């Protein structure tokens, strides 16, 4: 199979897809965001618990393809323990990455970096950004409160 595909379906993506982190619903969450991608049927429910400007917990649940589900798993992993503003910065970085823009080299993106290959598959970018859009929506609500 093509090496392009290998750039999309990295092992770490498949790992998150098969063993999603932070799967479930927070009973004591402060924000619940439901989002779906109407063109393909992917959906996510994200629950966030924000205390004193910090995302202390995040859980996600939904259904969709390997890209959308692994992205949701990685996203919750990445924002847990982060300040709201830092999580939103990360979201911007992720959006830039999906548009194929250069990312600052010293940024440690961890597993998220594996999703870089998605930018070469325009039809799949929306899969990868679904969970991040949900997170942005929730944290922007938080900022406005």
């Amino acid at each position: 199979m093509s090496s392009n595909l290998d750039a999309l379906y990295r092992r770490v993506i498949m790992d998150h897809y098969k063993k999603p982190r932070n799967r479930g619903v927070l009973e004591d969450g402060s924000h619940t965001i439901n989002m779906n991608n109407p063109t393909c049927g992917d959906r996510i429910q994200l629950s966030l618990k924000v205390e004193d400007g910090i995302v202390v917990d995040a859980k996600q649940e939904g259904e969709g393809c390997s890209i959308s589900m692994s992205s949701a798993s990685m996203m919750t992993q990445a924002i847990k323990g982060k300040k709201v503003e830092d999580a939103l910065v990360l979201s911007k970085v992720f959006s830039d990455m999906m548009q194929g823009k250069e990312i600052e080299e010293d940024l440690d993106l961890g597993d998220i970096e594996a999703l870089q290959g998605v930018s070469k598959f325009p039809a799949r970018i929306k899969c990868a950004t679904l969970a991040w859009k949900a997170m942005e929506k929730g944290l922007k609500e938080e900022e406005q409160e």
Partner: protein
Amino acid sequence: MNIQDIRKQFPILDQEVNGRPLVYLDSSATSQKPLQVIEAIEKYYREINSNVHRGVHTLGTRATDAYEGAREKVRKFINAKSIQEVIFTRGTTTSLNTVAASYAAATVKEGDEIVITYMEHHSNIIPWQQVARKTGAQLKYIPLQADGTISLDDARATITANTKVVSVMQVSNVLGVINPVKEIAEIAHQNGAIMVVDAAQSAPHMKIDVQDLDCDFLAFSGHKMCGPTGIGVLYGKKQLLEKMEPIEFGGEMIDFVELYESTWKELPWKFEAGTPIIAGAIGLGAAIDFLNEIGLDNIAEHEHRLAAYALEKMAAVEGMTIYGPLDAAKRAGLVTFNLTDVHPHDVATVLDAEGIAVRAGHHCAQPLMRWLKASATARASFYLYNSEDDIDKLVEGLVKTKEYFSDVF
């Protein structure tokens, strides 16, 4: 039918996608266009482009003749009694919305029923939801049997004396089943209801005779039957269309305009507001000529054979779930499926890397997806330019997809 000769008439098919020869298996979404359709549209713009039914000048007459000539081709294609029963629209969705917003909104009252089925496309659900909401009518669904077909007993049990409108797709864009719309029309009429047929997936693939079906309205799109996008047809029985009010006003559809009152043109132009879709209609006319030259019966038989071949080959792939009846006799030329543990989007991406175009998603049929207990599915759909070879490549691609995903885990 010589597939190699037919393929030569579709220039788009002769290309590589992602380094592989294109295998186009998404004709249920939109079909490709043969040269004679592309050339008819080009010829219109190069030689006779003019507004219709207006100018005294020569080009205006030529454009009008070509536009109205296309209407006559459509009339013959579906065996309507008169061209007054053939309205050009933007597509199936607009056609169905016109019936809902004009006929149904004026006829349906609180306590009445509108009957559709679980397998309908969103375009044959939401217009009726809107009518039900505005009028207080009840929207009812004919259930599906385990294999995805409709039984006439269920249709009889759902359609009652309170039913005013029954609207059913002739061929399902997901299950591939061919529905007994003629028999359902009979049940509708016995109960005093009108019958609407969504022919978006049937008109490209099988002979349609509106008089034989005895449907009251029938809707289809040009772009799924080798024609251009942006053109479709609403057939309606004359006595119904005559009673209906237009839903768009101005341009082509007017007769006399006074300061405070106006009158409409006669059928079919009453429903064609604005400058009509002239090039689209001419392109659709050329598509009908093309399909007639090959013969709808030959096309239907060819697709039937492909469906039977695909069902057999695909069912042999390990981990394959096929939706809809496995009996090819009950089907048109498409197969909707899922591979265990591989999401349909991922299937479609891997196949695309092999040059194979399939559809993945909910296919604009979310209620049906819930009935199937699938959030999404993949679909391969066939048309007159596909061959057994395309299906072999699809099956090979599916085996590779399975292997690829078991390797990366």
